[in-house]
């Protein structure tokens, strides 16, 4: 099947080629359309006429197909045309461009002819045409416009047209596609002649022209910022400044034109800004401009800008300053004073503040103020002279008013009388509240009791972090005005103290003062929690106050958050004034953690976490019990001491033998009972290595065979003897104490100590050697043991003393010895058992 189709196609192609060769290459069909460029969405009609001699249709029934792009369109054959003509109607052509093809059906289909149909919109008239001249080199005129909201979807050409009426010149500038501005060169416009300018847009569906504009190029020029050459006071004319200016160097050729000039003057100290520019029409740079009605003796900063007729204003020039002529200050000063001192003795210390009233004019730059008790000017009576806004002085006796004058280089103002109002202990003001209005103003409100003598109020404010009185400001109000918006350069997050004083006919009442912030934020720090007290189930925290410069607002609350390892978080609000908080109902033996949050109206800040634990007993109870216990113990000690004095022997028996002191002891006096009680424990606490640093027990040579089995001679089993035994030479590797030679005593006996009648006498040998218990004792071993038989001689001094000879002294009564030395006694018992 495929091979058949292919052969048919090959034949058809051959036939078509043959037809082309014969007929000078004419297409087999011809398509006619209503339009090849249409409005988007509009209908398109097309017809296809197939030539009679087209090989594809000769002798065959023809079925014509239409394709738009890659899809077939429904069509209808035209009657009476033997099927070689077809028409198609596309009701809405919604492509920007597409190919319409005419085909005939074969086994598939054959394309005979095709046309491209494009769709779009006619151009809209360009909008917002505007032009601006550039008068710097090179001089140009640049125009720009908007092409219209709707995309045409077709190639649209824009042309800029100019018509210069005076010179009868017309120019047309072709514009680059997509660029909606054009710069006309200098030859394209006459500087002082009107030129009509418009933009024309053309595409295949139509054309549109913008609304024309007519302009004089110089009137459309934005001039360079002009230059102020000089600004100076006008001689003999107060409040006037003369201003000389010029155009920029490139535009100075227009100096003869009548230009419009705007002058902007501001006072240099910015306290009395005059923002509104003053327009000066029809001026030439060749002539200076005078501005009057300015403040006297005031430094002004001037800026100018320029334009020609209705052209755009130039940028403002750079500032130049000038000072008007100075004259004496005028107007009164507002004042407010605080009086302190001994009123009974009429010793008044005055702190006087002042400020310019609305009518006051300094009329000079360096203004100082003089306070005098005399109205007439002069050094006599002057109490104060300053450049500031306040002064302190002591009021001369009897004076009830002072006079305040402003002075500058040109003169002195008429004095303002200031009456001295003494403080009165009358409080009529309450509920002072301050509400921030914006960063520069605060609304102060207060309540006042009605009083017939009340004449008004004074609101005084100052930054609390600035101690200089220079920053203190005040405002006077009438008696019926209980709110005031105070405006100042309030710094955010900084505290201000605001006081409201009542003014009476005869004095100043007591003020109400509050702290206020223009803006608040979270504090900069959180105070460190200090544990003041830990109770059985509670804990008390305290902390220091946050420094004023770190509060950043009015402290709203202190909140302590705490929890133990398991429990939920609890919150306690603290006392703002006392700065303490008690956490109650805490579990004992639980580890708690806590932190504090400090809040202002502007935010909160959390502090660091601390950990604490509640003890099982009460510290208070301990504090109460301990002294009682100590006192009780003290009395008990006294009681015991008295008892022991009364029974000295018994006391010694119980307490003193704690460390056996062979020098002061008698073996016979030791009893097994006494050693089993207190002796061992006391021995552990306070060993006496000097006197009994080494103790070894030796039997006669005949008994040595049994020593290995004797637990008392084993190093492991003699730990109770402490270092004395631990340092026994029976322990391998023992190096002894710090000393190379260790004093020790050797007790030599031939039989069990408990035997009633020992055959051989026991011998005590004092030794000091690194090799004890070897064959021979050193010569300095004790020769005798002086107190062996001294029963009842405890009060006498007893000690190991050097013997007069090397012969060991025999013990008189071995039975007594065994009783006084419990270990020896134990040894003897052991020997007895073995035996």
């Amino acid at each position: 099947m495929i091979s058949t189709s292919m052969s048919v196609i090959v034949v058809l192609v051959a036939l078509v080629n043959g037809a082309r060769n014969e007929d000078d290459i004419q297409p087999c069909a011809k398509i006619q359309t209503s339009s090849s460029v249409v409005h988007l969405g509009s209908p398109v009609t097309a017809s296809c006429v197939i030539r009679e001699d087209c090989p594809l249709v000769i002798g065959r029934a023809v079925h014509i197909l239409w394709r738009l792009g890659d899809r077939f369109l429904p069509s209808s054959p035209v009657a009476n045309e033997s099927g070689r003509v077809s028409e198609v109607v596309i009701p809405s052509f919604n492509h920007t461009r597409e190919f319409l093809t005419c085909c005939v059906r074969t086994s598939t289909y054959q394309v005979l002819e095709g046309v491209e149909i494009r769709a779009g919109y006619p151009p809209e008239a360009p909008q917002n045409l505007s032009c601006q001249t550039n008068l710097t080199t090179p001089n140009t005129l640049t125009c720009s416009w908007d092409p219209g909201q709707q995309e045409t979807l077709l190639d649209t050409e824009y042309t800029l047209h100019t018509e210069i009426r005076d010179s009868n010149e017309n120019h047309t500038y072709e514009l680059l596609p997509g660029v909606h501005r054009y710069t006309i060169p200098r030859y394209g416009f006459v500087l002082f002649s009107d030129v009509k300018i418009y933009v024309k847009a053309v595409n295949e569906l139509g054309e549109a022209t913008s609304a024309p504009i007519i302009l004089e190029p110089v009137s459309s020029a934005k001039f360079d910022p002009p230059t102020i050459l000089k600004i100076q006071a006008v001689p003999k004319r107060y409040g006037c400044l003369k201003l000389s200016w010029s155009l920029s160097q490139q535009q100075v050729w227009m100096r003869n034109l009548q230009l419009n000039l705007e002058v902007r003057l501001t006072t240099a100290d910015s306290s009395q800004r005059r923002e509104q520019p003053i327009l000066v029409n029809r001026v030439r740079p060749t002539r200076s401009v005078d501005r009057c009605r300015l403040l006297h003796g005031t430094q002004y900063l001037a800026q100018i800008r320029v334009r020609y007729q209705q052209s755009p204003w130039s940028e403002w020039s750079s500032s130049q300053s000038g000072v008007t002529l100075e004259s004496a200050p005028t107007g009164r000063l507002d004042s407010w004073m605080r009086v302190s001192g001994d009123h009974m003795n009429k010793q008044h210390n005055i702190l006087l503040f002042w400020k310019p009233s609305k009518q006051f004019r300094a009329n000079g730059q360096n203004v100082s103020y003089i306070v005098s008790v005399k109205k007439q000017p002069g050094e006599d009576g002057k109490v104060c002279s300053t450049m500031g806004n306040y002064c302190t002085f002591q009021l001369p006796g009897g004076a009830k008013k002072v006079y305040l004058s402003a002075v500058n280089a040109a003169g002195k103002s008429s004095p303002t009388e200031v009456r001295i109002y003494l403080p009165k202990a009358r409080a009529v003001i309450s509920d002072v509240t301050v509400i921030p209005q914006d960063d520069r103003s605060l609304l102060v409100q207060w309540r006042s009791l009605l009083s017939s003598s009340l004449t008004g109020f004074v609101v005084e404010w100052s930054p609390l972090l600035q101690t200089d009185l220079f920053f203190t400001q005040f405002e006077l109000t009438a008696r019926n005005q209980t709110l005031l918006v105070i405006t100042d350069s309030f710094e955010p997050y900084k505290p201000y103290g605001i006081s409201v004083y009542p003014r009476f006919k005869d004095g100043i009442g007591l003020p109400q003062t509050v702290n206020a912030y223009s803006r608040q934020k979270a504090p900069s720090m959180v105070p460190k929690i200090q544990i003041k007290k830990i109770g059985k189930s509670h804990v008390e925290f305290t902390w220091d106050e946050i420094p004023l410069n770190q509060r950043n607002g009015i402290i709203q609350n202190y909140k302590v958050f705490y929890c133990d390892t398991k429990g939920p978080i609890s919150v306690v609000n603290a006392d703002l004034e006392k700065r303490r908080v008690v956490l109650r109902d805490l579990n004992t033996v639980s580890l708690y953690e806590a932190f504090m949050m400090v809040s202002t109206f502007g935010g909160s800040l959390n502090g660091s976490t601390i950990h604490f634990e509640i003890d099982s007993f009460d510290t208070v109870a301990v504090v109460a019990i301990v002294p009682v216990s100590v006192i009780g113990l003290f009395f008990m000690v006294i009681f015991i001491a008295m008892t022991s004095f009364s029974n000295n022997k018994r006391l010694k028996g119980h307490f003193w033998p704690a460390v056996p002191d062979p020098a002061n002891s008698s073996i016979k006096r030791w009893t097994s009972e006494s050693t089993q009680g207190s002796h061992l424990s006391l021995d552990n606490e306070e060993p006496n290595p000097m006197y009994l640093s080494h103790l070894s027990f030796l039997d006669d040579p005949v008994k040595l065979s049994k020593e290995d089995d004797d637990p008392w001679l084993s190093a492991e089993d003699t730990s109770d003897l402490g270092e004395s035994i631990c340092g026994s030479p029976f322990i391998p590797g023992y190096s002894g104490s710090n000393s190379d030679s260790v004093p020790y005593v050797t007790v030599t006996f031939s039989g069990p100590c408990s035997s009633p009648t020992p055959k051989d006498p026991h011998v005590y040998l004092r030794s000091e050697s690194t090799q004890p218990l070897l064959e021979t004792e050193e010569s300095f071993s004790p020769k005798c043991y002086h107190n062996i038989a001294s029963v009842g001689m405890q009060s006498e001094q007893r000690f190991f003393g050097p013997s007069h000879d090397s012969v060991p002294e025999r013990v008189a009564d071995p039975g007594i010895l065994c009783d006084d030395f419990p270990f020896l006694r134990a040894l003897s018992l052991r020997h007895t058992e073995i035996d």
Partner: protein
Amino acid sequence: MVLPTVAALLHCFLLADLIQSAPTISPANWPADSSAALRAAAERVKTLVEKILRDVPAAHAATVTIEGLTLDSAHTTNLQMMVTSLGIPAAPVLKPPSERFTLDVCMSRMSAGSRLYQRLLGDLSDRLSGLSDLQADLRDLQTHIRKMEEAAHLDVADQNQSLDLASRLHSNYELQVAAHLTLTQLRSFSHDLIRSLRAVATYRPQPAGAR
């Protein structure tokens, strides 16, 4: 009859233009529109002449590179033969207005001079770059001198001399010398224009009965 009227008009308008504080005095029989147009045109002529004077040095620097040929040099007297051979005509002579050198003559000389230099610069700018702005300035000047004439109801004939300067500029040297001579003469003519406008402003024609 026309001349005294024109003189009075120019006097009034130019004087008022140059001296800002002076009140504008218009002849009662002269339409207000015409007087305003004349005044505006005169103001603009002056401004354009100022612009030309500012632009000439830049144009000279851009076109003339022959060493020693500067705007302020004394070479011009040595170039008289070149002036003749290149066929550069002399600028129209401008004088202070007087009874012999009447204002309409003055205006026609101004107009002729601006046309002359516009054409000369046109020939030169075909082969030299840097003169087109100046050429445009001269076109503007000519336009506004014509507007002055129209405002004053003067009918100055447009005498188009045939220059054909381009055909005589065979070498670059000749081209630059021609540019130098043209710009030098243009500057001189511009100064004369300024003087003439000032003289007109202060000129007080004698009343007709005084003759």
